[in-house]
């Protein structure tokens, strides 16, 4: 199978602090992987590493076939990252924001319109400044930007945070659709496994390392 993410004992330091202390993880194309773990375990750091935003200090790491040691740049356009921050311009409206990020990834007007509609932002909200949105609406706008991008690797940091029930379902569908169409999804979630998570595979991170790697059924295919 095609390995989209392949980390071997990867170490990442933030300042002096080793946020990841040797992560070994393989993710194949089309997989949906949920990363869980306590606060400060290094989940967000893992996502940022996979997005090529952080240097690998030790170990080997490759994403989408590129070695992160030598080239962290060329893969980035194929990656969609939804972090804790939303990456929006406060003084532009919802539509302007999505259209801007759309134009940056060469999406057409139609796609922008559809993304806005898909995330339930049409109608009044379309022309509201992002500054004035509620937390959940903001999050949705950020998502709409990802939808127009159609990345081949989705990295989602707590995608369900701040969303209402309908929004959660929307996101779950989105993730499933993306995976079905060949994209790979790595998402961080604090929600308990029992919840309707779109993922079959759960990876637990703690102390900057992967402590368990199981399918929902509980069958470990452990790397640690």
């Amino acid at each position, binding site marked *: 199978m095609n390995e989209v993410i392949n980390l071997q004992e990867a170490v990442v330091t933030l300042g002096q602090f080793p946020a990841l202390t040797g992560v070994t993880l393989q993710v194949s194309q089309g997989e949906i992987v949920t990363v869980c773990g306590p606060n400060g375990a290094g989940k967000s750091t893992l996502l940022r590493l996979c*997005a090529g*935003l952080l*240097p690998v200090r030790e170990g080997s790491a490759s994403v989408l076939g590129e070695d992160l040691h030598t080239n*962290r*740049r060329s893969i*980035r*356009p194929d*990656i*969609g*990252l939804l*972090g804790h*921050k*939303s*990456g*929006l*311009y*406060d*003084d*532009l409206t919802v539509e*302007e924001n999505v259209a*801007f*990020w759309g*134009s*940056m*990834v*060469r999406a057409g007007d139609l796609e922008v319109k559809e993304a806005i509609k898909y995330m339930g932002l049409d109608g009044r909200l379309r022309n509201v*400044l992002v500054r004035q949105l509620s937390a959940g609406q903001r999050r949705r706008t950020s998502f709409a*930007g990802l939808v127009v*991008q159609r*990345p081949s690797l989705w990295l989602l940091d707590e995608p369900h945070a701040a969303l209402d029930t309908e929004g959660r379902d929307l996101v779950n569908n989105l993730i499933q659709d993306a995976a079905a169409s060949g994209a790979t999804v790595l998402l961080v979630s604090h929600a308990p496994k029992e919840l309707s998570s779109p993922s079959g595979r759960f990876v637990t991170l703690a102390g900057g390392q992967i402590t368990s790697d199981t399918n929902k059924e509980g069958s470990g295919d452990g790397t640690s």
Partner: protein
Amino acid sequence: MELRDAWSIARKDLRIEFRSRILTNQIAPYTLLIVVLFGFALDADTQTLRDTGPGLFWVAVLLIALLAVQRAVKIEDDDAAKERMLLTPVHPSSVFLGKAIALFVQLFALETLLFFVMLALFDLSVEDPLLICFSAVLATIGIASSGTLYGVITAGVGVRETLLPILLLPVLAPIAIGATRTFGDAFGRVDADGWAWFGLLSVFAVIYTVLGMFAYGQLVEDA
């Protein structure tokens, strides 16, 4: 690099600026205030003011440029938009160009305003309007380019507000010196060869723009 991207980015920046009406409601009055402050600090007769006019003009422009660069950086920094930009296929030099264009447009608009105000207040007369125009454009290109470059150097630093001036002002100083001389010549106040100085300005404009387009990519890559 694609010009279309640069243009989208410039438009976005200008739209944000326009929306917040900073230019008309705030920077413009600030500009005027600076002029008044200077006039006050000098406490001088019109003759002195007239002689120092070009110098004051460019010092005021530098201070305004600082404000504008800070705004430009803040827009990208506030909500991690800068990082998101990395995850698009847009070439960094397009981003640089786009942001520099937006900065240029804002600065140039303000300079025009400031120019006419000083013309009236300090009772200056223009001898060589062509030199004024050309040198203002080139100096502004230099300022916008280096401002954008240094903006990204200080982006995300947390202490941006204070780090930026001390890095940027020395870089802008040669431009300010050159532009002061061309203006001095164009106003007929000093015996400088304005067009020679104009050459210096062109050199700086080209250097900073080219350097910016290359260095920008280097800088954002790891950010």
